[in-house]
Every structure is written in structure tokens, then in C-alpha cells.
């Protein structure tokens, strides 16, 4: 395969890489051009997304750079979600960051760089590309977490994220080196063929370490400890970004490595995934109950959601992977929406409000915001007729058809525990007496994105099921 074909296949990443470099130059000379750079970055993401859509529609399925990178429907679908989440995070950010005095032109550039990394992650078919993509994303993310550098909490979040992230990368690398050592290759395909029959101890260790490292990246229990602290400390638009795009990327990466490299050893990882899934669901649900800070609450909610997502992976089938992709798509809309609502909570002096007490009686003072927030909460809880229910439905359906009844039963019972804290948010907004501390928001972008995401997540989203079903089936089919 010649270089030009390879370059042709990585057009989304090329567009983003070159735009990030060009935008970095603008940022270097004009520090106050944050908004302009943001708009251009969104345009770049749209352009890259257009190519991803093109690959998806054209059914492109080709390998680039001698098997290091694969442009297929699976990667393209994940990229569309990632670029969408990144674009939304860019659109909602400027005003909020300006208020904190942290809006600098590097912000959009870092988001784009992270998006490049994530694009590489989801298309990686080799341990090396995997690691490069992961680290590009992570390094950008560490900086983003501490982007409000004058805020102690933000700096702390960045540090925590960095230290723990580096540890996870170390674990991952160790696992990768074991895999390489025992199979003699870094390519997923070769590892897959080498891992047939009896699994040697070294390979088993390698597999466990790789899965542990990735579990950290998707913040699955028991590697979730960093999530509440980082989510709470990072500026809210950044948290919205963390909770959406990197989750998609790391989950897609996990799916690909598990299916392509460990596909012959389902027994070896299925148990691990099941335990991690159930622990995430339960820890995410129980941990959230006592939270008074809404960002921490949403952090636990994301841990909880990752658990449900992993149920689809535990099924280990094509149907399970398709279900995960549906779940991811819905999850991105719900999570971004939740954070968009959160960002509209502003006090009299324009300061961000993020505690449970602040939203008391919100339905009286800001009925529309409360209604949309309630929609996101019910949807995250998986109550029909909201769209979040459909995500849970397909995931459990996959588990049932794979015959994983105990997993499905425990998981769905634990989802009732999760419903409790989502209900608590609704209760605080609707049943409690008004605290009257929230001012009317002035940010039109937030209002419109919140409203649009709310419509998607409401029962109207069901109309998208046929399309979503076809696309995710195609994407999952690319792996099997």
C-alpha cells in the first residue's frame, strides 16, 4: 500500500492536525482571539466529521500505514460521535471560560489535538498507534483539566488526572509489552491469531494489564477514583468534554482491542468485563446518592453509565457491540445535555452554581431549564419514554441473547438504585421550596444546545432508531 492511499484514508486526522497547527499560530500572536479560534475549530471538526460520514456511507474498510491504522465503519461512527461531542464542548465553552477569566485561544486548539488523538485511538489496529493516540488525547486532557489555572480546584484536578493517568498509561504499557513479548507482534491481528488455544500466563497478565489500563481511561470501577475529583475540579465545559468524547474514544478502543486482539479468548476477558461492569453500575449508583455537588453527581452517573455500556461488551457478540454504539450515541447526547443545563446555573453575580441546594425550586424560577434538566435526569435513569431507555434496552437485550442472565438481572436491579439519585435531582428542582438563587441565563448558545439535545433525548429520539440501528449494525459488522 502506498503512502498516498494511506494519507487519503486518514483525511479526518490530517484536517484536524493541520488546522490545530494553523490555529496555534493564530493563538500565539493573538491571545484574545479565543472566539475566532473556537469557531474555526468547530469548522475543522465539521470538515473532519464530513469525511467520517463519507467513509461511513461509502462503506470504506481499508487498512493504512501497513496495518497500523484502519479506516472502517466502526472507527468512522466513533469519530462522528467524538467530533460532535468536541464541537459541542467548544461551542458552549467561550462564555463560561470568559467568566472564569480562563478563555484563551489555546483551549480550542487543545480540544482539537485531543480529538486527533481520539480519532487515532478508535482507528488503531496496532498497539503502537493505540498508545500514540491515547497519549496525545491524555496529554491534551491533562492541560485542559487545569485550564483555569488561577483556580486551585482546577489545578488540583489537572495534577490528579496527570498522576493517575500516567500510572494507568504505565499499566497499559506494561500489559502491551507483555503481549508483544509473548506474541512477537504489536498488531492486533497477529496477536489475535497468536492467542488461540491455551492462554499462557504471560499473555493472561498482559491481557489483564491492558484491560486495567483501559478501564482507568473509561473510568470504570474499580479504577474510577479519579473521576469525581477531576470532574468537580475542571471547568464545567471541560468536564462536559471529558464526560463525552474521551469516553467514546476509550470505549471504542476497548471494543476494538477486545474483539480484534482478544477475540479468540472470550472466556478470559468476559468475566473481567462482567465484574467491572457490575462494580461500575453499583459503585456509580451508590456513590452518587450522597453527593451534594452536581458535577460530582454527574461524575458518578458517568461511572454508572460505563457499567451499563460494558454489559454490551460482556455479551461479546456483534449485537452487543452494536448495542454499545447505540448506548454511546445516546449517552453522549444525555451527558452533554446534563452539563449544558448545569452551566446555565448562574448566581446573581454571574458565579457558577453547582450544588444541589442551588437548584431547589428551580422549576418555579426557571421552568424551561428545570424541565429540560429533568428530561436528562429521567433519561439517564433509563425511564421510558425517554431515549435513555432505549440505550439500556438494547444493551440488556444483547446480554439476554448472549445468555448472561445473572449479569442482566443484577445490572437491571442496580439500575433502580441509580434511579434514586436522578429522582433526587428532579425532586430538588420540582418539590422543594425555591431557594431563588439562580438568575436567568443570558447565554443563547447554551439555551439552544440544551433545548436541541433535550429534544433528541425526549421521546422524539425514537424516530432516529431505524437510522441509528442501521448505522451501528454496519459499524459493529466491520469488526466481526
Amino acid at each position, binding site marked *: 500500500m502506498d503512502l498516498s492511499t494511506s494519507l487519503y484514508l486518514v483525511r479526518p486526522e490530517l484536517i484536524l492536525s493541520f488546522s490545530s497547527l494553523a490555529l496555534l499560530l493564530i493563538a500565539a500572536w493573538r491571545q484574545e482571539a479565543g472566539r475566532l479560534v473556537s469557531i474555526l475549530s468547530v469548522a475543522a471538526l465539521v470538515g473532519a466529521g464530513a469525511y467520517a460520514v463519507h467513509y461511513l456511507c461509502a462503506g470504506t474498510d481499508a487498512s493504512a500505514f501497513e496495518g497500523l491504522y484502519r479506516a472502517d465503519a466502526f472507527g468512522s461512527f466513533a469519530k462522528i460521535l467524538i467530533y460532535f461531542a468536541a464541537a459541542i464542548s467548544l461551542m458552549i465553552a467561550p462564555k463560561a471560560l470568559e467568566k472564569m477569566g480562563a478563555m484563551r485561544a489555546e483551549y480550542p486548539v487543545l480540544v482539537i489535538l485531543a480529538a486527533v488523538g481520539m480519532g487515532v485511538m478508535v482507528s488503531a489496529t496496532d498497539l503502537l498507534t493505540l498508545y500514540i493516540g491515547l497519549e496525545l488525547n491524555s496529554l491534551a486532557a491533562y492541560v485542559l483539566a487545569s485550564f483555569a489555572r488561577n483556580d486551585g480546584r482546577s489545578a488540583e484536578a489537572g495534577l490528579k488526572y496527570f498522576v493517575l493517568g500516567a500510572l494507568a498509561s504505565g499499566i497499559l504499557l506494561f500489559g502491551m509489552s507483555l503481549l508483544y513479548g509473548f506474541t512477537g507482534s504489536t498488531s492486533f491481528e497477529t496477536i489475535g491469531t497468536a492467542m488461540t488455544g491455551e492462554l499462557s500466563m504471560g499473555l493472561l497478565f498482559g491481557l489483564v494489564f491492558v484491560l486495567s489500563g483501559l478501564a482507568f481511561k473509561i473510568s470504570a470501577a474499580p479504577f474510577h477514583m479519579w473521576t469525581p475529583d477531576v470532574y468537580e475540579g475542571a471547568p464545567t465545559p471541560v468536564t462536559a468534554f471529558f464526560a463525552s468524547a474521551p469516553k467514546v474514544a476509550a470505549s471504542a478502543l476497548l471494543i476494538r482491542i477486545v474483539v480484534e486482539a482478544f477475540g479468540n479468548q472470550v472466556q478470559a476477558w468476559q468475566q473481567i468485563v462482567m465484574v467491572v461492569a457490575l462494580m461500575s453500575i453499583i459503585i456509580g449508583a451508590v456513590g452518587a446518592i450522597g453527593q451534594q455537588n452536581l458535577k460530582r453527581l454527574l461524575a458518578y452517573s458517568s461511572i454508572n453509565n460505563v457499567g451499563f455500556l460494558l454489559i454490551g461488551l460482556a455479551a461479546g457478540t456483534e449485537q452487543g457491540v452494536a448495542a454499545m454504539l447505540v448506548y454511546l450515541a445516546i449517552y453522549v447526547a444525555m451527558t452533554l445535555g446534563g452539563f449544558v443545563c448545569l452551566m446555565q446555573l448562574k448566581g446573581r453575580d454571574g458565579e457558577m452554581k453547582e450544588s444541589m441546594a442551588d437548584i431547589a425550586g428551580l422549576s418555579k424560577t426557571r421552568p424551561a431549564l428545570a424541565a429540560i434538566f429533568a428530561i436528562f435526569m429521567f433519561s439517564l435513569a433509563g425511564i421510558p419514554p425517554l431515549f435513555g431507555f432505549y440505550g439500556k434496552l438494547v444493551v440488556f*437485550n444483547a446480554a*439476554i441473547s448472549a445468555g448472561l442472565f445473572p449479569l442482566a438481572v443484577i445490572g437491571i436491579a442496580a439500575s433502580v438504585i441509580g434511579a434514586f439519585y436522578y429522582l433526587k435531582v428532579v425532586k430538588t428542582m*420540582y418539590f422543594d421550596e425555591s431557594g431563588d438563587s439562580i438568575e436567568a441565563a443570558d447565554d443563547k448558545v447554551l439555551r439552544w444546545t440544551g433545548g436541541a439535545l433535550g429534544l433528541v433525548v425526549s421521546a422524539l429520539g425514537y424516530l432516529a432508531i431505524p437510522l441509528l440501528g442501521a448505522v451501528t449494525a454496519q459499524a459493529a459488522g466491520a469488526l466481526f
Partner: protein
Amino acid sequence: MNAAELPILSIMLAVPMVGALACLFVRDEMARIIALTATLFNLLLGVWLWASYDPAGAQWQFVESAALFGPIGWKLGIDGISLLLIMLSVFLMPICIGASWRAVTERVGLYMASFLLMETLMIGVFAAQDLMLFYIMFEAGLIPMYLIIGIWGGKDRIYASYKFFLYTLLGSVFMLLAMLWMIQQAGTADIPTLLNHDFPPEAQTILWLAFFASFAVKMPMWPVHTWLPDAHVQAPTAGSVILAGVLLKMGGYGFLRFSLPMFPEASAQFIWLIFGLSMVAVVYTSLVALVQDDMKKLIAYSSVAHMAIVTVGLFTFNQQGIEGAIIVMLSHGLVSGALFLCVGVIYDRLHTREISRYGGLSINMPKYALFFMLFTMASVGLPGTSGFVGEFLSLAGAYKVSTWATLIATTGIILGAGYMLYLYRRVAFGEQVNADAAAMPDLDNRELWLLAPIAAAVLWMGIYPESFLAPIRRDVATIVERIERAAPAGDSKLKVHDKTTAKYRIQAHGGEHDKKAEGAAH
């Protein structure tokens, strides 16, 4: 014109939905008017639906099908059982709106929207012909009801709303898993097809239990009934009406639509469980009702007792029992709704539900006392009211299966008479001990308009039940035919050839006896 020419069920679902959206954006007074118009219009559509329904026609009528949502099919259609339950919903709905006309003054738009959404979902539950669509409609009702109890409820409303939501949710999620498994096994989510699909008996047991978890909570059966008294007491009047009137019927409808015809063997296997729990419920909750000081709580416990008679009737596996259970459901929907309205009427005046704060109301509120009397009698099961027909039929059906269960369930009627008459005596008769209660004005026109239609329906059902039995007879027969293979042997066989009992039989009646018994049962 025949309603079948239009997608009438979709229209009936859409009308309240559109009304609900409109209510969110208008002023209070306008929201009330929109809600009343929408519900009355739906009532008219319902009447039209009933008039167009052909009891001798196809089993499923007004069938609609559209592939809008991929695997979740938009499939609607009704048989006679669904028809009557839909009628009950659309009949009670305008009354609920009327009952909250003045009682609700805060966030009226949201309140009306919640009720209209409830109406859509209730009709959807009874009309859904796709398993997933049914589940969505069944579950979605939690959200508006949670808001209704939580926002406009009484003092402990938050506790009650949580309890209601989480209890019912926990019950239902297992049903969801069972449904997913069924869809995979049978390869379809179409309810009419599934009704004739034979699941292996060993799988039936698990599936039955999963469905039981959901319907028993919804019904509610002892011992998972504890959410009901809390929810009822805290909910606003109209919320209680809809909860007792229609939402509880979803449990019974579920047993009838899913548990019995889809899992006949498992249903037969678990008769002991159903009868056992129902017997406990009848006696226990009746006794609990007897000692209540709170009127709403008393009626809530009486609901549990009546629903136990429904479950006994449903699991008799014979025509009388199941017809009776359906009539009890309809009758209880009307009567308990009316009783909650009666409580609401005096609650609006005195703002207390404590029985001892009232007394001698028949003196200053004669019209009220008359209506209250009628509904009390209907709840007790006096012949001539709807309560009698249903209870008699279901107990007659139960007698064919289990003498003991019938005997104990029948004590429920005696105990029912006990607590209801005791309630009525304390509220309406006796001395006028409380000056403020004695000064309450009688029913005004609005309240009269709310209670009179229910009274008429209760009497209609009591005097000429054929109107209500005709649409369901054939559908019940279909279910009975389907489950016949698993029907349990009764313990009350006539021992014609047994010499030891010969002397107890009255020879004069001879062969006439059997015919008479059957005639009375119908």
C-alpha cells in the same frame, strides 16, 4: 360512520398529548379549559369507539401498525377487555380535571399536562399490541405520577412519591428482561402472535415470576402493597382517583393479557401463591382498614382488598371468574374513584381527612350524604350496584376451584361492609360534634356534575351488567379456551354417586338445581 375508518386509537392517543403540550405554554385558566376540552373530546371519541366496536367481529379491532421506531413497533388494536378499560380511563379523566378545577392553584399548566400525559399513557397501555410499546407506556406513567404526587401532594409527599416510583420501577425491570427473552424466543414482539406461542413450561415459571413481580406491585398484592396507602394519602384528590381508578387496573390487565394466556402452565402452577396472597390480603387489609383514622387510607386499604378479589377471580381459569374479575376492576375503578372524590369534596372544605373531625354530615349535606351512601353501598357490593355483579361472579368462579379460597375471600365482603358502613356512620350520621364540619355547605353544581355521572354508571353496571359483559364475553372465552389445558381440578365436585351425602340433597329440586345455579351465575 364507523370509527375503524380512521386511525382512531392513534387519534385518541394524540389528543391528550397535544393538549398536554399546549397546557405547558398557557396561563392557568386557559390550561384548565384546554385540559377539559381535550379530555371531553377524548370521551366522545371513546363513546364513538365503543359504538363502532363489534362484539361479534374480529378479535382485534381498530388495528393499526406502523414501523416508525425500528424494533419497537407502533402497533395498536383492542379487544373487548381493552375497550372497557379504555372507556374507564376516558370516562374518569374529565372528572379528574373537574375535581382539580379549584383545588389546584399552583403550576396549573404542569398539573394539567401531567394528567393529560397520563391519559395518553393509560390508553396506550390498553391499546398496545407490541410488547415493547406496552412496556414503554406501562413504565412511562411513573414520571407524570411522580410529579403529581410530589408537587401537589400532602405533607409527606416526597417520601410517598419516591416509594411509589422505586417500588413500581423495581417490579417492572424484571418484566423487561423477561419480555426481551420472550421476543428472542418467539422472534416477534407482536402480542396477538405471542398469545398463541407456547413457551416451554420450565421457562414459563421464570417468565411468570418476572411478570408477577411487576403486576403484583402495580396491582397491588399483599405484601408489596405498602406503597399504595402512602401514595393515595399524599396524592391530590384527582391523583388518587386516577391511581385507584385506572393505574391499579394495569396490574389486573397485565395478568389477564400476559400471565394467563402466555404462561398457562405456570399460572396453574402458581395458583396457590395467588390464592394464598389474595386470601391474606382480603382479611388483613380489611382489618387494617377497619382501624384507620384517615379516610383516604381506609379507602386505599379497601382497594387492596378489592384487588385481591380480582386476582382470585382471574386465576380461576373459568369464564365466570375472569368475567367477574374484569367487572370488579371496572366497578372498583368507578367506585373507588368516586369515594376519593367524596373525600376530596369534604377535604376541600375542612382540609383534613381525619374521620373524627366530621360527623352528622347528612344533616347539613344531604345531597353529599346520598351520593356517599350510594358509593359506600357499591363498595360493599350491594345488589343493584356494580360491586355486586363483579364480586358475585368472581367468587362463583372461584368456588369451582377452591372452596377455602372462596370462603375466606367472601369474608372480605362481610369485613368490607364492616369498615365501609363504620366509615359512613362516623362521617354522615351521628351527632354534629364539630361546629366547623356542621357549617359546611352541600355539594355545589360542579361537584354534582362530577359525582352524578359516576353514580349513573355504577347503577347501570349494577342493574344491567350485560352492556359490559357483552363486549368481553367472547374475549374471555378465548382466554379460557387457551388456558383450559392447564386448568386446575376444582375441589367442589358434586358427589352425585356418593351415598353418604345423598341424604343432604333435597330431592324435590332434582335436576333443576344445576340449571338454576348456572343461570344465576350469568
